[in-house]
């Protein structure tokens, strides 16, 4: 509402100002035209068929709701969800709405199934991986080679056992377990076979530092190549350095009872920190390396991959 005094003032101004007078006339014309449009359309309404369709849809949904409620009362534990509104099959809107709901229901079901399958796969994988973990001494006794026969091709050799020539993970097996080029995971632990192959039989070996170079002294009947070269060599397409020790002093006294070989990317400056030559022009590029991490969580050794 406009103040009467202000309105009177504005009207007096319009009488003496031609521009404001013209603008007021335009506004009045527009208001009149809009009122004419509103008046011209005031009798318009939706066709009667719309009401017919809507009432049919309403009654149908009501009947379906009541039927669903009856079913729910009969078996509350089976059909505990509220019944959806069912719409007439010959109603376009009902069909569209029903289709949308069906789409959502399908998407939800698919997602739930996918999540379940993923969970099952994870549990299965975890079980498999757990079986490949270094066994306890009690288990070791059970799987240890007897009478020179190999009980399991993947059973680790334990230090408490007498040295045996039977290779638990022969080089051929390790070669067979090599990953295909281009599909190698960042951590070899993701593949149980690779984990078996890459886990050196540490107790039978003894970590030594020989002039800052090679790592494992083999047990009897084993060669260093079986450990570092055969088992852990990532593939023919890659060339690797020898393992370089990362922990000074203590590892020699602490036997390596098992571990993992983890593929990492490091700044190229890490080469210099280990006393290796560094190309300054490529100083910003990362370099791939395999880190041998013991079961105690300590990084024992590293080798670089090209």
């Amino acid at each position, binding site marked *: 509402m406009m103040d009467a005094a202000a309105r009177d003032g504005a009207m007096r101004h319009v009488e003496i100002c031609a521009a404001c007078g013209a603008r007021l006339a335009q506004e009045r*014309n527009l208001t009149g035209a809009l009122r004419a449009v509103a008046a011209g359309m005031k009798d318009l309404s939706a066709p009667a068929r719309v009401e017919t369709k809507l009432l049919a849809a309403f009654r149908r949904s009501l009947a379906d709701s009541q039927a669903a409620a009856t079913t729910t009362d009969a078996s509350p534990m089976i059909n505990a969800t509220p019944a959806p509104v069912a719409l007439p099959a010959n109603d376009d809107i009902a069909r569209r709405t029903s289709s949308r709901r069906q789409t959502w229901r399908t998407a939800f079901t698919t997602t739930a199934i996918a999540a379940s399958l993923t969970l099952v796969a994870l549990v299965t994988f975890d079980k498999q991986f757990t079986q490949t973990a270094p066994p306890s001494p009690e288990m070791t006794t059970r799987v240890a080679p007897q009478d020179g026969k190999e009980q399991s091709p993947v059973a680790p050799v334990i230090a408490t056992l007498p040295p045996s020539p039977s290779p638990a993970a022969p080089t051929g097996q390790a070669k067979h377990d090599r990953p295909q080029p281009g599909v190698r995971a960042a951590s070899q632990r993701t593949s149980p076979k690779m984990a078996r192959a890459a886990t050196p039989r540490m107790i039978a070996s003894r970590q030594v530092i020989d002039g800052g170079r090679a790592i494992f002294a083999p047990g009897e009947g084993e060669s260093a190549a079986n450990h570092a070269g055969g088992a852990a060599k990532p593939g023919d397409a890659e060339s690797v350095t020898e393992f370089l020790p990362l922990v000074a002093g203590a590892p020699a006294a602490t036997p390596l009872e098992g571990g993992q070989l983890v593929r990492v990317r490091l700044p190229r400056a890490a080469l210099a920190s280990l006393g290796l030559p560094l190309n300054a022009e490529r100083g910003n590029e990362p370099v791939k390396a395999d880190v041998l991490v013991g079961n105690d969580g300590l990084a024992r050794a590293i080798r670089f991959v090209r």
Partner: protein
Amino acid sequence: MRASPEHSDEELLRLTAAGDADAFAALYRRRQAGIYRFALQMCGSEGIAEDVTQEVFMTLVRDSQTFDPTRGALASYLYGVARNQVLRRLEKERHFVAMADETAEDGDAIVSTHLVAADDPLAELARSELIETVRQAVLALPVHYREVVVLCELHEMSYAEAATALGCAVGTVRSRLHRARALLVERLREVRQRDAAATTDFDPLRCFA
């Protein structure tokens, strides 16, 4: 309780939710014309307006619990649902709006309604042309201006009711309406000038009889 014309919208909605078909029919008959006209004025297509009206009341059947009486009247809620449906349809079927410019090219004259006499056929024709011209001018407005013009000018809603239906502030409605009216004035002036120019440049064909 039987539905009757004395029932408010909210009471009819409550009865509808309880399964009263008569209440639903009464509510539909009370509100369908406004919703239909709103959709028609917004999109200019009877088919779309019909679909929108149907969808609005189906929404009421399906999701009547989404209406919150503390936030505004049921009519505003229905207009809000209709507006969302219209915008969705306009997004899909832009060609219905594009037709407005085509028709406006005809150059209809603008005549004030207070000059029209009811028993004057020429004036009645001019009035029809005026209505069509303004209707097309409204349809040619951008959507956010068009909806405030339709609600506040053609449906005579208050700013507060329009703000509830549109889900915006009252100040926004005011400013949009002001700009929309300015655009309409400009648009109608162009049409009038074009019409005057066409009349001035009229060159009758020579008669060789």
